[in-house]
């Protein structure tokens, strides 16, 4: 066991534990915080794998931006706290699917990559990365910039309070379903409609 292995095992256990708590925690904010820990752990995993630059990006983008964004999202939507409110009735099913998938996938992974010899970890130098992204990968890089602009504008369009700049309010769609819906659902929909189009929008905006 080299030093790399020791570091990897320790950080890996932390990451795996964080992931489990992220998806099972009963408290929303705890789940988001454990998610941040998991993301930080993954940055830690990148270090013994000699991907220093990626570890840095992981911290800046994921821990710094995405995790915080999620916390804002959870706080602004003021979702209820408590296990029953967070998890559906499918916990057993989820356990079975995820567990089964893990057994199958890990068997396949060990079968395919298990007998590879241990190798010296050699990461690219950061200038190699820079040259690669602007020489070999310049097209996806440019397209990604367009995608990010679209995401930025799209997020603003959806998140701002006004529904649009001009024209009349759309008539609310009435879609006839193939099967008649239970009257309960219709009632709830009506209630949501009135609360949604009333003062609600102002309050949460």
């Amino acid at each position, binding site marked *: 066991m080299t030093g790399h292995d020791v570091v990897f095992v320790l950080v890996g256990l932390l990451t795996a534990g964080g992931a489990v708590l*992220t998806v099972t925690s009963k408290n929303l904010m705890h789940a988001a915080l454990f998610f941040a820990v998991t993301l930080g752990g993954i940055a830690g995993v990148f270090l*013994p794998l000699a991907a220093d630059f990626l570890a840095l990006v992981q911290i800046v983008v994921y821990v710094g931006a995405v995790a915080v964004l999620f916390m804002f999202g959870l706080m602004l939507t003021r979702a209820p706290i408590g296990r029953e409110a967070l998890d559906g009735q499918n916990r057993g099913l989820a356990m079975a699917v995820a567990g089964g998938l893990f057994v199958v996938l890990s068997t396949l992974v060990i079968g395919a990559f298990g007998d590879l010899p241990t190798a010296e970890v050699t990461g690219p130098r950061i200038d190699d990365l820079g040259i690669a992204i602007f020489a070999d990968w310049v097209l996806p890089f440019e397209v990604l910039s367009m995608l990010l602009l679209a995401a930025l504008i799209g997020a603003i369009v959806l998140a701002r309070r006004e529904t649009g700049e001009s024209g009349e309010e759309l008539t609310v769609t009435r879609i006839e379903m193939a099967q008649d819906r239970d009257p309960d659902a219709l009632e709830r929909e009506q209630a949501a409609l009135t609360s949604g189009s009333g003062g609600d929008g102002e309050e949460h905006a």
Partner: protein
Amino acid sequence: MSPIGPLLLATFLFCAGVYGVIARRNAVLVLISVELMLNAVNINLVTFQNLLYPGDPAVTGQMFALFIIGVAAAEVGVGLAIVFNMFRNRASVDVDDADLMRW
């Protein structure tokens, strides 16, 4: 270092994400679970790059991981905006409440 350790960790994270997607009802938590799956993919890519194909001048694996991080950030932004809009209209972010349409 053997590649099998990181690969198994990635598999575990991926399956934890799958568990979260199925079990969670809050749309934001479902999105968090999907992000876990994407991070698992990144561990896979970096492991393959640095242990199996280290000599690649195009650094394919790490580049792929960088692109995934970029796209994932865009998705989170758009996704939270969609969840917000839904919350404004329905005062709920529960995916089980999104039941206006069946069949």
